[in-house]
């Protein structure tokens, strides 16, 4: 159901969480609970979760309520990757088209308040007021600029209108290169588009990995949708570029990021035509696609401790309240800024280089 990497990762995260918060963890695998019970265990969840939540007055994120429904495994990300878990945002891959389909997420079943409210509004009778005007789908076409993860919405051009990847590169250099660099390496503080860095970080002090199309983006369709929608920044959706030009830029970025088009790792040649088929081929080989999972928050289930709280909830997480970090050097080079103003020795200011 899930890519191996995603599952392995979830276990690692769960282990980190156990170490960090000293919370009891038990391994849990997927599967729908068959028996109803007030307190479910054995790695499955209570099918009567709605009753349990209702009994608690709707506190579906209360630690004790979650423990009743999920057993002691409330923090396990791995369990939440199972679509059947009432706290999961995931949608079964079989429904959303597999690891390279247009993946979906959902509001978890346990968020009963949201689901009940939505259902109420869906079911309530409604008689149209007639205040709008009917409009033909054909009249909406000029505004219908979305191209989704399945490739629905691509404009289809006559065969001879598609340009080569090489020509697409020229369009890119003309319209995009001054901000993003000729090879997508970034410039002037704008983001790079084609730097391949490892996204795994072992030390929090390391600089954040650079996220680019090649190493991060899950869909190639997004390149065309976004670039045509919002770029070039100063004149988006430019007629000077046109759909053929936007395909050209998209294909050039696919090439610059080394995204393969088939199982043999074939990459785009300069002479290849920049077509929707090329984008859809690349769409299947976005290397980071399998590493996305639905938002799994809440991630921690803190206790509302009031008095003499345990060390893991105090100060640095080990009970030391003097082990803290201070603001030191800021990105603009200022050291621990504004102290004289904050001591009221000089008039109130606006902070370091704020404006």
């Amino acid at each position, binding site marked *: 159901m899930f890519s191996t990497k995603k599952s392995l990762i979830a276990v690692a995260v769960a282990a980190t969480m156990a170490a960090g918060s000293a919370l009891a963890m038990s391994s849990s695998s997927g599967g729908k609970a068959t028996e109803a019970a007030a307190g479910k265990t054995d790695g499955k969840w209570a099918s009567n979760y709605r009753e349990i939540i209702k009994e608690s007055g709707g506190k579906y994120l209360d630690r004790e309520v979650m423990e009743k429904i999920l057993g002691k495994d409330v923090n396990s990300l791995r369990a939440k990757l199972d679509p059947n878990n009432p706290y999961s945002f995931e949608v079964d891959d079989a429904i959303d088209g597999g690891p390279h389909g247009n993946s979906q997420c959902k509001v978890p079943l346990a968020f009963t308040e949201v689901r009940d409210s939505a259902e109420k509004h869906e079911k309530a009778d409604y008689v149209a007021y007639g205040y709008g005007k009917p409009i033909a789908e054909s009249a909406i076409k000029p505004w219908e600029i979305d191209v989704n993860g399945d490739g629905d919405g691509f404009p289809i051009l006559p065969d001879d209108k598609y340009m080569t990847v090489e020509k697409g590169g020229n369009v890119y250099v003309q319209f995009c290169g001054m901000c993003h660099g000729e090879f997508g390496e970034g410039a002037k503080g704008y983001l790079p588009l084609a730097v391949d860095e490892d996204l795994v970080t072992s030390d*929090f002090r390391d600089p954040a990995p650079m996220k680019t199309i090649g190493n991060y983006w899950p869909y190639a369709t997004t390149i065309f949708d976004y670039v045509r929608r919002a770029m070039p920044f100063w004149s988006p959706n430019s007629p000077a570029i046109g759909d053929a030009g936007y395909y050209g830029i998209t294909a050039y970025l696919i090439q610059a990021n080394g995204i393969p088009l088939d199982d043999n790792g074939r990459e785009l040649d300069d002479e290849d035509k920049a077509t929707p088929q090329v984008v859809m081929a690349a769409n299947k080989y976005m290397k980071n696609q399998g590493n996305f999972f639905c938002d799994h928050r809440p991630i921690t289930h803190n206790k509302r401790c009031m008095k003499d709280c345990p060390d893991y909830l105090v100060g640095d997480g080990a009970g030391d309240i003097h082990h803290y970090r201070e603001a030191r050097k800021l990105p603009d080079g200022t050291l621990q800024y504004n102290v004289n103003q904050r001591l009221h020795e000089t008039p109130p200011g606006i902070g370091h280089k704020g404006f």
Partner: protein
Amino acid sequence: MTDKRVEEKVALPTEESRNQSRRAFLKGTAAVAGGVLFTKAASADYDPKKAVAPYAGKKEITEPLKDGPWRHRLGFGVRRYPYGQPTPEVSYIQRRTLEWLTPDSMASITMTPLQYLHGIITPNGLHFERFHGGAPSIKAKDHRLVIHGLVERPLIFTVDDLKRFPSISRIHFIECPANGAMEWKGVQLNSVQWTHGMMSCVEYTGVRLSDLLKEAGIKLDKARWIIPEGADASGMSRSIPLEIAMDDCYVAYAQNGEPLRREQGYPIRLVVPGCEANMWVKYLRRIKVSDVPLQHREETSKYTELMPDGTAQRFSWYMEPNSVITYPSPDFKMQGPGRYVVRGLAWSGRGKVAHVDVSFDGGRNWHEAHFTSPVLDKAWTRFEIEWDWDGSEAFLMSRVTDETGYVQPTMPEMRAVEGTNNVYHRTAMVTWRVHAWNSKNKGLVENVQY
């Protein structure tokens, strides 16, 4: 503990003694925490003599009062300012930005000066701004909203058409998911304007989205997502699951009683209560009803959260419950040992705030604050708690619990799971270190992080 201190506590207003934390005091709980002394209240009977106690020993002012010149000449007439302005004395209360955050001002953000706000409503002129392609100047008469896709009959509306529908007005917070993003790896900013100012709380008026979708005849058997889109240069778009769309979203044309400002989406914007501000599409011109999400850049490349192991969370919607002490905070300086009314804001993207607890000793002991504002669904809630500062070093934190039972985590808890490269949703507690009164930086309030 002296008798005088007990008497001071007794002089508290009765409305404050109604709240739960007071009840705890009345039960006789006294806690000494990190140099913070909580006094025990004895009885609630009022005695005017007790009002004298805190002033004992203070020098009496004897110089006769003088009039200001404004007492002897007329002020300005009506309509001098057809649209009123803040008094010039408070011109320092502004939304501001940090120049190193973004390379230009059209795709940038300003922060609301939370440290200077009172209550739960943000004035329209101080509402934070987040542009992805500048703020367009669209005329309402030229604007249209189209609803199409999985509907019986695609419809187009003018802004006047929308105003004819039954309306709702709600007060909600709106928060950029990057609020606090600069502080994942540690602190670098000393003002709540910088640490929490990518949010505001205003009253929106508009039309229920569920009404508009049903007006067009939404095909509920197939529809799973709505894809709203803006008319601006960024063509902002997100995919919103139908459950959220049908729950409590609406299309707003007014903010705090007046038309939306251009900065906030004039003439219309989507309101997605409790969810990332990025989903509240401004300059809304099209809503497509779909069976699949879009996979827009703002829900794949951006607004997804990178985990330490290289995986990433996508389709993040709800803003986690969060809270912050706005006074004292780094923009203020302690004025010496004594009694302080500690104030702050709490909010939750999943409903009402249930409790706010404040610690003065870095999280070892907590004291429940009381609310001084209405407690509304997915809105800022004001809290206050009295604190007798003895002048020693203190570590102030606030922790919210919302009506779903969620308890705000500590930063070490959050960092253990999410690492430091998430960018978005840094919603763990912050800590204000109050320097001891007898130290070099006496009474300085400083942002520190565990």
